[in-house]
């Protein structure tokens, strides 16, 4: 975990909905593990004080990249920043995905929306390729298929309106695939909470291990404020654990879904 001023190398529209930001962050970039995030201070915000968390999408040399969607005041201001301008980042943060061992389990990645970004580094660092299941509402919600194919992964896309790939939810092709075989397979998922919940249920049903990257609002990003907690099993009961520190990646069997919102 390092705090540093980072310089914008590029900040361009990647798809209709997403922007791709590359920053020079020589102290942070080399440390990044798949599933970790950077906590970014967008300095021109001024009256909006908090940092914004973004999964680290790619690492190259002394730079890292994020893929982000303009959804509110922070990301909107960010999308108008130009190369050469400064941000501040703390990273890499959080407990990421367990990178598969060489010859170990075959990874099945399940992603919705910016979840794709969080999984890319995992695909890159995984010694064996697997399948990526990616879902969204419309064609424009499907991100970086090409990047995964370029790494030799199989991509199965679904859209709710059928405008791209199979029509339906991302869990459909996943169920089909799990029905085919579960042996030696492991799920890794990142996306909206309902999707994670569905993946968790499938993991239980099919008895496959699953790691889920949970999406909670954050404040400090480093474990001091206790904003980002989710209910996690603790003996017979449960306790709140921090998404930014014990997570964002949790073993799906640990999450107490009954208590989550």
């Amino acid at each position, binding site marked *: 975990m390092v705090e540093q001023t980072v310089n914008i190398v590029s900040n361009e529209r990647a798809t209709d909905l997403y922007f791709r930001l590359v920053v020079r962050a020589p102290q942070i970039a080399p440390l990044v593990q798949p599933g970790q995030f950077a906590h970014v201070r967008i300095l021109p915000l001024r009256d*909006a004080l908090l940092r914004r968390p973004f999964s680290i999408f790619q690492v190259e040399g002394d730079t890292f990249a994020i893929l982000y969607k303009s959804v509110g005041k922070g990301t909107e201001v960010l999308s108008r920043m130009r190369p050469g301008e400064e941000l501040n980042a*703390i990273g890499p943060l959080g407990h990421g995905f367990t990178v598969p061992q060489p010859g170990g389990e075959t990874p099945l990645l399940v992603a919705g929306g910016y979840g794709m970004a969080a999984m890319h580094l995992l695909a890159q660092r995984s010694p064996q390729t697997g399948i990526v299941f990616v879902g969204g509402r419309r064609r424009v919600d499907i991100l970086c298929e090409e990047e995964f194919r370029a790494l030799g992964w199989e991509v199965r896309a679904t859209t709710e309106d059928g405008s791209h790939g199979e029509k339906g939810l991302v869990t459909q092709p996943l169920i089909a695939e799990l029905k085919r075989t579960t042996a030696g397979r492991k799920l890794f998922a990142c996306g909206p909470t309902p999707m994670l919940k569905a993946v968790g249920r499938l993991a239980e049903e099919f008895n496959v291990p699953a790691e889920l990257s949970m999406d909670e609002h954050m404040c400090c990003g480093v474990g*001091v*404020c206790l*904003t*980002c*907690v989710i209910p996690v099993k603790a003996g017979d009961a449960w306790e709140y654990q921090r998404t930014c520190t014990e997570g964002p990646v949790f073993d799906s069997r640990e999450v107490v879904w009954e208590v989550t919102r």
Partner: protein
Amino acid sequence: MKSEIRNPMSEAANDARATDLSVQIGSLRMQNPVTVASGTFGYGVEYAELLDLNQLGAVVVKGIRLTPVRGNPTPRTVEVASGLINAIGLQGPGVDGFIQKYWPFLKGLKVPTIINIWGTTVEEYAEVARRFDGLGGVGALELNVSCPNIKEGGAQFGTDARLLSQVVAACRKATRLPLITKMSPNVVSIAPYAKAAEDAGSDALAVTNSYPAMAIDIETRRPKLANVTGGLTGPCIKPIAIKLVWEAAKAVKIPIIGMGGIQNAADALEFIMAGATAVAVGTANFYEPQTALHVIEGIRDFMQRKDIRDVREIVGSVQLPK
């Protein structure tokens, strides 16, 4: 020869004399007046990678009660204009959990640890104070009588001068550690409460805690916090906090630790001039973890620029118009 021209030792001594930042909070000496606000700095260890804790005046930990506390459901914080509303609900490991998990690290620091404590009854406050008294090595206890985010305990002790007296007096009996009473801002006038805490044996006051506040999501028509209401902190409350410190300082002789929206040395100096002997950085830690260190540096720069040798010369130095 060389040593005749430059003696690094005596130069350091000169520098130290030139700007003495140390302050005294009851029997607790702090190397500088800058600490952190309870609940915004975890148990110190979380920030150890990002800053040198040993440069702080003291480390102040999240509020601790006798037993573990699970805290409120989420969402627990929401960002507002120049501020933050939180309703964490004092999640914590309890006294035993704290001692086991965090004390080994904290007691190894060169700077004192101030432990923020609370209870739901006067007796519980006293019991927690007694436990930490027995621990040895604690710098001071801060009595949180002003948390707006839990029903039982907290706020009502801070807005009822009689209860406030009882809590302070009971803790006073339970420990010889310096006691800092953390005041509620939610009063018509802070003076009588400040006086009550002083009279009951508090060694210092912390002014101020967060302001009761609320935000609503107009799309869902639900409160933005699961707890409905929470406490407002950050730069937005600074002008109210400065006024409270100024009034409290006029009412009591004991030192005051000022806090509320401090982002830089200028903010801290404003509190000190209003009457605070020390200051604490709170919400700013969340977005700029190095804030407290920048504040220390900035106060030193200010003193050197203005040729002030002792930070205590600035305390309460605001000049009122005739």
